[in-house]
Structures are given as C-alpha cells and as structure tokens.
C-alpha cells in the first residue's frame, strides 16, 4: 500500500502561521507557535516563508542516532514515531535531524515531532493558501512535472486558441 506524505510549498506560503496555531492547539491545547510540530520560518524578515515539518525519512538519521532505540517506524502509516517509554530526552535526535524538524518542549522536557495526526493532519485543513498538502508519495513529483510541461506549451492546452 502506498502512503501519503505531508508536503509544503514555500512559494505559496503566506506566513500566516495558522498551521502552527492549529498544530499547537491540537497537540498542546494552547496557541503557541513554539509548541507546534510544524514551523514556518521567516527568512531575515523578508517576504519569504519556509514551512518545515518532519519528512518521515526512509533512512531516518534520528532513528540511527538514538542510543535507546526509542525512535521507530510505524509501518501502517509509514511514519517515524517516538516511544516515550524508551526515550531519555537526550536531544541527540534534535541535533541529527537535517531539517530541524524535531523540537524540544522545554515545559514537558521531552522531544516532540510531527505524527501526521494519525493520518489526518490538522495543519493542512487550515492552510488557506494551499501551501501544505497531504499527497500520495508516488505522486509527489506531479506538480513539478506539470509546471515544467506548461513551460513548453506556453501555458496553453492543445487545441485551445487565444
């Protein structure tokens, strides 16, 4: 069975932070972007916003570095999860993640990361700009294919004049 992944398009993101608010509300019950599993980074106060969340890598570095083997792969949803019974909050995974997608919650004293809301991510429901999407991983490349293909045709479909 093919699984779906959360993808973010920085070109569409307006930086409204609604995804962060929705995530923190769902997971912590309060509105606080610092407690969100997804982050929108505003680069140098420019008009550029970069949404970042866990990629659930096939060969996940966090899984590799965990000394207690607390990070495991949930086969059903193809997601990377933390087993808090084993986790010792050493923060090694925070350092290992190339995306910086694992967050340390200073209040609860433990690492937190995106768990795809058990297959129905709350953040994408609030993305008004459609910058976030939850798509089948075999179809990931299609927006790019479509974009490039349209360049060849000048944005026109065959048989359409004007």
């Amino acid at each position: 069975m093919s699984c779906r992944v959360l993808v973010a398009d920085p070109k569409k993101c307006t930086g409204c932070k609604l995804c962060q608010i929705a995530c923190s509300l769902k997971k912590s019950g309060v509105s606080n972007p610092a407690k969100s599993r997804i982050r929108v980074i505003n680069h140098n106060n420019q008009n550029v916003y970069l949404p970042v969340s866990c990629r659930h890598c096939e060969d996940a570095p966090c899984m590799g570095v965990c000394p207690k083997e607390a990070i495991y792969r949930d086969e059903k949803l193809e997601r990377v999860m933390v087993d808090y019974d084993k986790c010792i909050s050493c923060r090694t995974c925070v350092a290992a993640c190339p995306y910086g997608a694992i967050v340390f919650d200073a209040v609860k004293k433990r690492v937190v990361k995106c768990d795809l809301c058990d297959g129905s991510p709350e953040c994408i429901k609030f993305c008004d700009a459609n910058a976030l999407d939850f798509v089948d991983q075999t179809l990931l490349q299609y927006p790019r294919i479509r974009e490039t293909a349209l360049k060849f045709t000048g944005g026109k479909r065959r048989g359409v004049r004007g």
Partner: protein
Amino acid sequence: MALNRKIAYIDLSKKKIDISTIPAVWRRRFIGGRGLDAYLLYQHMPAGCDPLKPGNPMVISAGLFGGTLVSADTVTGIAAKSPLTNRMEYSTFNGLFASEMRWAGFDHILIKGRSKNPVYLFIQNGTIEIRDADGIWGQNIPDTQKSICKEIHADDCRMICIGPAGENKIRYANIITDRGDAAGRTGMGAVLGSKNIKGIACTGNMDVEIKHPEEVLKWQNEKFKSVDGEGEFRENNQEGGLFSKESVLCREFGMDLKTVDAILNWIFVLYEQEIITDKKTKGLRLNRDNHGAAHELVRQIASKEGFGKILAEGPLMAAKKIGKNALEYFGTMDKLAEIYMERKPEPLKQINKPEKKISINDLPATISRRKAIHCIMDNLAINSRRLIGSDDKNDLNMIIRLIELNTGMVFREKDLIETAYRGYAVERLLCLREDDASKNAPMSDQYLSVPDESELFNNDHQDIDLKHFKGLITKYYGARHWNKSNMVKLKIFESLEISDLWPHRAVKK
C-alpha cells in the same frame, strides 16, 4: 484562564513600566480593541492636550483573537489623538504584530511621556525593555527593520517602526509593519516620533490559552470549508496612484501614500493654475514634464525642508497658508474626506450600492445597525471584510460563538450590541471634549454636488440634497440614541453602566 491577559503602562519620561492584569469588568464592558482603547485614552489623556506633546498617550492593542485560529483576519490597532484631525483616531494594520504581542504576553500597551533620547521598545515573553536607538534614528524603514533585527539577534520577529517622516513629525506620517502594511491615515507615525520611539519589536513564545481548543478546531474547520475559492493574499494597502514611482519613496520615509498622492496631484494643479509660483516653491519647478519634481517634493515634505514645510502640516493647514481658494482645487471632497476621516461618510456610499439597494428613508436605521456590527468588529480587532456578510443576525451569532469558544465569555446579542454603543459613546465623549467643532458634524454642499463613481455607472441612482441629508442625519442620531446637538445623553450613559465617565455628572445631579 483564557482571559488572564496583561496591559503595560509605559511612562517614557520616568522610564517606568507598570504591568497589570486587564480587569474582567473591562472585558464585559468594552471587549477589548477599539472600545477599550477609547476608555484608556479617556482616562489617561489630559483634556485639550497637543497631539505632538508628551501628554498625548498612545495605545497599541491586540484584539480578543490575536494568536487564535482567527488571527489571519485580525488587525493591530493604534489609537491616540491625531495630529492631523485633532480628534481621537484609531488606525489599524494587518499582519501578525497583534498575535506576536499576545504570544509575548500583552494585549494592550499604553505609552505616555517622551524619552529624552531616541529609543526602541523590545517586547519579549512578558518583559518590555526600553533600548537605546541613537544609531538607528534617521534611517529609512527597510534599514531600521534590518538594524533592529540585528540588534535583538532575531531572524523572525514582528515589528512596527517609523521612518524619517515620523521623526520629523509630518502630520500624515504612518507606522509601517513587516511587509509594508501600514497604519496609514491620521498620522500615528508623528505621535510615535514625538515620543522619540523609533520602533517596537516583538517576539514571544508564551501560551495564549484557548477555552475550548477541540471545539474551536472543529468549528473553524467547518467555517473554513464553507468559504468559497481562495482568499485575498498579501493585499497591499499602498496602492500606487498617479505618482507610483514615488510610492517606494513614501514607503521608505514612512508617509501615508494616499495623502501624499492627493497632495502631489493638488500641488501640481495649483502650479498649473499659477496659484503657487516658483517663489513660493523656492525655485522648484512643478511641471508634469519635470520628472524629478515629484520625487524632490516628497523628499522635501519628509525632511520638512523648503516648500515641503508648508505641505507637512496637512492639506487643510497648507491651503490656509497658500490662500487664494487653494482648497477648491483639491479635487472631490471624497478625497479630502478620505484623508481626514477613517471611513468614508457611510450614508452616501450605502444608498447607491448596486448590489444591495436601500431606500433613502430606511437609511438611518440600517446604517445604525451595520455601524454597531462594525464597532463590535473593531472591539474584537478583526478585519470585517472577510468575516462578515450582509446578514446581521448571522454575523452576530458567529461572533458570539467565536468569543465563547475562544475565551469562554458568554454574550447575549443584546449585551454585544451594548458594548458597541458603549465604546462609541466613550469615543464620542472624547471627541466632544477635545474638539468643539465636531459637535456640529460639518457637511459641505460640495460633497453632494460632485458625482462619485457609483453615480456615474448606476442609472437608477437616488439623488439627495443637503436639506434631505440633514434630516436623515438627525434621524440617524436618534437611532443611535443621541440628542439634537449630537451629544450622547446622560440617560444612555446610565443604561450602559458608564455614568462614572459622564463629565458633567456633578452638575446634573
């Protein structure tokens, strides 16, 4: 508790900051936003103060919904006595400053006094620092933003700041936030400049508590689905007019583009008509083919040099100094009203709207009702355009539900409308105290005689003359519980439970 929120009183002269909790009774009475701003100003503003003197307090407010799931539609409000109109004014801008302010721990900030040297405020997680801005003073908007970001070591912070125009107290200087949204009209930048504040930066990662998080997510999600199509994104307040090249310059200097655009057009016409000459402009040739002229004039206004010094006082004052009926050439009254009023005179805009036509005689009641909803929106500090429709009942129910889910406050429809009237009554009282002229709201015949856009493109538009209009105004004031001389009645203050604010209380009783 969801409403355990803070207000900071900053006295720049004494370098003192008091932080206290916003009383629950204020929330019940005014909700927050504009209503509470007016109440705070009424208490802290000395009667008849000069807008550009230290006595004039400024309130920066986040509404009830900053940092919630409605935050994309929220605005930040700035209220003070305006140097342009000499009345209490409320100017708003979009963006996330209000949300960040709430995440940093504050709902309202009241700034009093004047700092001896230039400073900027840094708000972070429940603390406010007054920091030295000697090195930043004089910089334009983009440089200021970069400099402050560098000093506070933050890549991602929300900020408001003023440019050289605000520093020089140009009466239509604006306050600009991150991407160029601005609290444009009514010269709030000049008030901030008069306090020697260059900007306010804000970062926070404190919790904003939501009363019913699960229900909010569910309810908002359904609301989201029902909105058709894509929303408006990255909408820019600073639309370019005739002098679009100068808009970039205005943004850098921190001046209201609409006002500058109107003034430039006006001055060029005056020059063509030879009402102003080279002698008056100190040698600046204002021909349309002189491409550098507009650019130079904008620079002169922002730095209060030469001819710009006259224009920096606003079109009404400038017209007095130029003389020779200069104001007649300003174009339509609409344009002048746009600069001097925060909203266009609504009655006239409403009657000829093609999509929803109202009979002229129904106007007072209709507008009074709509006005109450707009007031509630201002008290909540949300952008009314996207959230409310044309069905009053529906809109009010939606607002009541939103307030309940997010804060736990339960309002009845009647209570909610009362908060609107209450805020408006305080504002009106403040207006009357500060500016006698507004007792007889001036309405020029010229406004009614010059056709506006809707008349030109609308065949069955309803004509209206000044006498008829004045009759409607009286009716409108009646619908809003005002008496003939436009004063709010003491009886109303008593029924709204704010009779303690009534200025002539001792005399009347």
